[in-house]
């Protein structure tokens, strides 16, 4: 989920980011409640309602006569709608798929990347033909297709489903809360390049096309990262937690390295790496949740995770803007972003059973349809505590 972009005349980056992200605030506020709603009514009605709200908000925004009107419509209505759509959809994917959960999540998230690609020129075309009012109106119509997507989510009854209260009992689930804290830290740094990479590229003196190309390259890498990570995670050779730690630390390192990219090829390489690793960690973040809290709690836990992690997202960009204002360039911002990611990684290391799985050496690897492992043949095989090796 990327921050909305807009055009502002203020020169202060801090102000820009605050104003940009204020749109997201109402959206995040409802996410915890959704766990409750979804558990009670099922994913389908919630997603369909969300689709209606998001389209409605954009439609009302197309009639806006003031900036406040725009914010309220897009931020409140559409934001609410998007919140209603996102969490149950991700949760439904987790519920439907068990063996290939991460790959399914990764595939689902590729929609984000593909639509980013298609939507940039499309939106430009819409604005050129219909001005921003007409463009918003048509985007609202396209958003209504979320209702169609919601209709496709068939209700599923799992034996682990709890009929109990929503998500508040999860607040006392200590490992889960540690996980949420880790993801919040990660979220604080995660979005920085999306808001600041273009500006950083321009700051170094490159023109807007080069900057846009950089973002496109990172987006393609992001897409590949999501798919690769999904496939790798489901191979079963490594624990999801270890994989997540690997991706988050690599993302943090690449963020810290971004300020070192002074020349265009080097910057492009580092940006590509960032794109790949950050894409790779996304599906794992969500597919690991059932391992921690169980699939029965998936709606409530994802809602809670989303709500709390977005505090990080909301704080990250203005902080980065403030650092830019005080230090004069983006070096501090990117280093801080990388530091947050590495801090989150450290918290992940404290999760239970991180190192208590026993890893045997050089046993035949279970292939599970993973050609990579077939090639390797033998390697470390990890089993959870209490389970004997087969």
């Amino acid at each position, binding site marked *: 989920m990327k921050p909305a972009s807009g055009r502002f005349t203020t020169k202060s980056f801090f102000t820009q980011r605050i104003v940009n992200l204020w749109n997201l605030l109402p959206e995040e506020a409802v996410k915890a409640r959704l766990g409750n709603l979804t558990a009670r009514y099922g994913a389908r009605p919630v997603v369909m309602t969300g689709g209606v709200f998001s389209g409605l908000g954009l439609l009302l925004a197309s009639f806006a006569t003031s900036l406040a009107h725009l914010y309220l419509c897009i931020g409140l209505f559409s934001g609410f709608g998007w919140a209603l759509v996102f969490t149950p959809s991700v949760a439904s994917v987790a519920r439907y798929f068990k063996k290939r959960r991460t790959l399914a999540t990764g595939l689902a998230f590729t929609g984000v990347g593909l639509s980013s690609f298609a939507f940039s020129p499309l939106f430009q075309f819409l604005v050129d033909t*219909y*001005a921003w*009012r*007409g463009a918003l*109106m048509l985007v609202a*119509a396209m958003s*209504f*297709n979320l209702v169609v997507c919601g209709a496709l989510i068939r209700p599923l009854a799992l034996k682990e489903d709890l009929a109990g209260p929503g998500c508040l009992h999860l607040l006392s689930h200590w490992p889960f809360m540690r996980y949420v804290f880790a993801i919040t830290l990660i979220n604080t740094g995660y979005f920085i390049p999306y808001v600041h990479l273009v500006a950083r590229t321009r700051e170094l003196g490159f023109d807007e096309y080069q900057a846009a190309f950089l973002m496109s390259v990172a987006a393609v890498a992001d897409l590949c990262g999501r798919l690769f990570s999904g496939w790798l995670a489901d191979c079963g050779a490594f624990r999801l937690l270890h994989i997540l730690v690997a991706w988050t630390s690599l993302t943090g390192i690449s963020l810290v390295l971004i300020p070192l990219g002074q020349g265009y090829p080097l910057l492009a390489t580092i940006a590509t790496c960032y794109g790949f690793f950050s894409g790779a960690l996304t599906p794992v973040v969500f597919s690991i949740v059932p391992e921690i809290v169980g699939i029965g709690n998936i709606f409530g836990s994802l809602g809670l995770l989303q709500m709390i992690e977005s505090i990080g997202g909301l704080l990250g960009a203005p902080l980065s803007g403030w650092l830019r204002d005080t230090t004069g360039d983006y070096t501090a911002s990117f280093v801080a972003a990388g530091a947050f990611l590495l801090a989150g990684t450290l918290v992940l290391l404290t999760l239970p059973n991180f190192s208590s799985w026993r890893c045997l050496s050089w046993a035949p690897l279970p292939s599970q349809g993973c050609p990579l492992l077939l090639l390797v043949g033998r390697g470390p095989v990890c089993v959870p505590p209490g389970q004997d090796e087969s």
Partner: protein
Amino acid sequence: RLLCNLALQSSDLTTIKVTWKKDNETIIANNTIANKKENQNILSDQHHCTPWQGSSSCQFQVRNTTFKANFLNCFCLFLVPAVEGKEKPIISYEGDSVVLICQSANYTPVEWVWYMSNGNAVSSFQMNDKYEVTGQHTNKTKLKVQKILEKDGGWYHCQAVFKLGESKGKVNIKVLSYMVPLKPFFAIAAEVVILVAIILLYEMYSKKKQTPIDEKEFEQIEQL
């Protein structure tokens, strides 16, 4: 700019002296051009910023021969700064206010005149609630048209009047009615309704056909 062109067939590759004179007064003397290739025309030109009238001449001296050309009643061309309008049409909807901007780089004109495409001078319009012109004496002028109607669409011309000449720019406005985007909007909304109906009806239909195979299906999905 005055240009002198000497076509020389000689294979003589000596240096050639050029002299420019204005009204018999020498401006540039003995400007030498050396080692030109055979059969190549020799060019010499003279740039001036101040206007002059009267005659001027340029003179080529090749060894002992002098070639002279006279210019009578020379004039200078003055380039007026180009006025920037907008190539892409501005799209607006009926009832909106539109601001048209014309810029003339770093040069400030004496005044700006706005015309509409059919030739009426807008700045002399008395309809003050509809048209408003700002920046008359700066290098950026704005024409604000309020409550725009469909017939107000078309080309608007801004003319910058300078001391030495005039320069024009143009801006295009396209006025759309709300129906224009509403049509595709309703088309897409209809598509959404139809698809949702199909999905839900298909599901109800297949549920009727389903017997205890129901639970097995869900278990299979669970194991995916």
